[in-house]
């Protein structure tokens, strides 16, 4: 019966001109619903984590709030959907969510064969390992992990990176994968695995949740590039632009010194044309700057996002940086002018 279904489907795919493409744009849908549907992780400290009252916090969460502020003028108008690694792309593809902001790695195949579009890189990350230094005092680098059992979450790029790295280093290892991160961490803490692997930011977050954080050592090596960013569906350029430029606006705001505290004043007082363009200040003859309108938003889109959520630096500090328990350095995520990789095209 299922086989019949598949043949039917393939036949239909070949012969039928696409009929479903005429749906309204996501931007209109969001306006109509009155909220942004945002896919997040099921709980990763610093990126997206719910408290007991289901209030979400984190970088990924704040980015969705910024989108909501830019589009709807209200950062609280977000509906968060926690997703597993497996579900995330289907959820986006099926329209269950409007934007996937779930520490997702930008890879080529996700661009080309899954029908996804990455709107930017919110966080430059890399995969690392954590080991219990009490149990394995002699492990100081990944190369000491020969023969070790490594736990990780299944269905992610993590397990592929481990395979590649250990093969290139000619090390043997055993991999144990779990459906959920929690289960992998539990197995690591029970001593079932010798090491646990995920993105480094995640390692620091998980380490804080362990019984004795100081017993756990994050190994120095980073074995992969993990550019994490928000994802939207292909074929909806208007929405893609909104998500992309909200991100750029946050980065530009930091570069221009705009914060949630001063953005209102700066809008009134600043004479810097870059700030004026970003905040949609009308020129002296009353002409609108037109950048928000060009995207299909209000002129105050960036101002709303910055005022209600903060600039990129504020978001970083609050959730993963010095203002958070994680205390992760800016590193590669510093602005380009500070030696990092965060760089936004100009608003012009």
């Amino acid at each position: 019966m299922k086989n019949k279904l598949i043949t039917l489907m393939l036949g239909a795919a070949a012969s039928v001109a696409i009929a479903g493409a005429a749906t309204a744009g996501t931007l209109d849908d969001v306006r109509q619903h009155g909220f942004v549907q945002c896919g997040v992780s099921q709980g990763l400290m610093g990126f997206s984590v719910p408290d007991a009252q289901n209030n979400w916090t984190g970088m990924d969460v704040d980015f969705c709030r910024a989108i909501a502020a830019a589009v709807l003028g209200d950062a609280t108008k977000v509906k968060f959907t926690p997703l597993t690694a497996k579900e995330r792309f289907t959820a986006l593809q099926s329209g269950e969510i409007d934007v996937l902001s779930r520490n997702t790695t930008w890879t080529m195949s996700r661009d080309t064969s899954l029908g996804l579009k990455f709107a930017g890189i919110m966080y430059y990350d890399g995969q690392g390992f954590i080991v219990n230094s009490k149990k394995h005092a002699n492990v100081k680098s990944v190369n000491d992990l020969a023969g070790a059992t490594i736990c990780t979450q299944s269905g992610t790029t993590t397990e592929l990176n481990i395979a590649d790295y250990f093969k290139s280093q000619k090390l043997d290892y055993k991999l144990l994968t779990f459906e959920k991160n929690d289960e992998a961490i539990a197995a690591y803490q029970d001593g079932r695995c010798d090491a646990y692997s995920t993105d480094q930011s995640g390692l620091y977050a998980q380490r804080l949740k362990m019984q004795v954080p100081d017993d756990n050592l994050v190994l120095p090596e980073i074995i992969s590039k993990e550019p994490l960013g928000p994802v939207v569906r292909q074929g909806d350029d208007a929405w893609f632009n909104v998500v992309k430029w909200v991100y750029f606006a946050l980065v530009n705001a930091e570069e221009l010194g705009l914060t949630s505290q001063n953005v209102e004043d700066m809008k009134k007082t600043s004479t810097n044309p870059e700030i004026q363009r970003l905040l949609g200040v009308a020129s002296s003859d009353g002409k609108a700057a037109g950048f928000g309108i060009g995207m299909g938003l209000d002129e105050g889109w960036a101002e709303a996002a910055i005022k209600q959520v903060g600039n990129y630096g504020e978001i970083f500090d609050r959730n993963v940086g010095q203002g958070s328990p994680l205390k992760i350095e800016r590193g590669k995520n510093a602005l380009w002018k500070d030696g990092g990789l965060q760089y936004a095209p100009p608003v012009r």
Partner: protein
Amino acid sequence: MSVAFVRDRDAPLRPPPPGTAGALGWLRANLFAGPGNSLLTLLLGLALGWLAWSVLDWAVLRAVWTGSGREACAIPDAGACWPFVWEKFPQWIFGFYPLDERWRPLAVMAIGAAALAPMMVPGAPGKQANALFLLIAYPAIAYVLLAGGAFGLEPVETSSWGGLLVTLVVAVTGIVISLPLGILLALGRRSELPVVRTASIVFIELWRGVPLVTVLFMASVMLPLFLPGGVTLDKLMRAIIGLSLFASAYIAEAVRGGLQAVAKGQTEAGLALGLSRGQVTRKIVLPQALRISIPNIVGIFIGLFKDTTLVLVVSIYDFLGIINAGLQDAKWAAPQTANTGYFVAALVYFAFCFAMSRYALFTEARLEQAGKR
């Protein structure tokens, strides 16, 4: 002929041979009949005693009763960590349901219990009205109360639901959907029309042949692709659909068993009275068949109730799922936390399922008696 002696009263009763009556006799017949049997009793008794003692020791004597974090429970040689349960319990029942709105799920549970109780008591009045209320009005009331968004109730997304609430919602909705579907399928499978019969058989065997985990994965990752563009279904709704289709196949088989048990003469008599086939099915065969299949349907419901735990694999936090998630809380990281959580989960599931299975036995016994008359 004269009789020399006729006894006109009973001889005094002699006591039974020692060890065949009374407590001692019972012991001898049931526990110490022969050396092998005695040894078995002794061994089993010892094992049972040890088990009971360990549980008591762990759950009561060595248990930690108060505290506010892992320090309380992480002491050496500690037993169950009860303060963990006290703190997490509301969340286990309601999930992330907003604190101020928790009276709503409570009200739903209370109304459901109040309406269900008279249904379970034989001879209680107003069963028909009650059944109609439970099957039609109650789901609507429950939905409005839980989801909100009408009558001034704050909307609560299903992603905030969790714990026992989700377990009950999934199980009850599952049975309410799968019961009519299953009856239709059972009738279809016994139909004389080849197309209807084949379609029913294929449907039933397809769902019965695959594990529920794959059905849930299918509901979570594949179902969205089947829907027309722009239509999306809630994740919880998708899981319920998957579970209901799965359960309907099993219900169909239970009902089919009931249909087969109804004597052929019933149908023939109905037809002879001039009823149409549809009327015979509706008014004569189906009521009898359903009554016979009640114990099996309750059995399937128990299975469904237990199977709701599998929604954990598609990351819906039911009762077991939320307990499991709570175990990762660093605040309560202690050696006995997980054991305590699982112990409570096992007790709660056992209480629900055992009660239901007893009820099924009770109904079965009643039906048997009705059949004997």
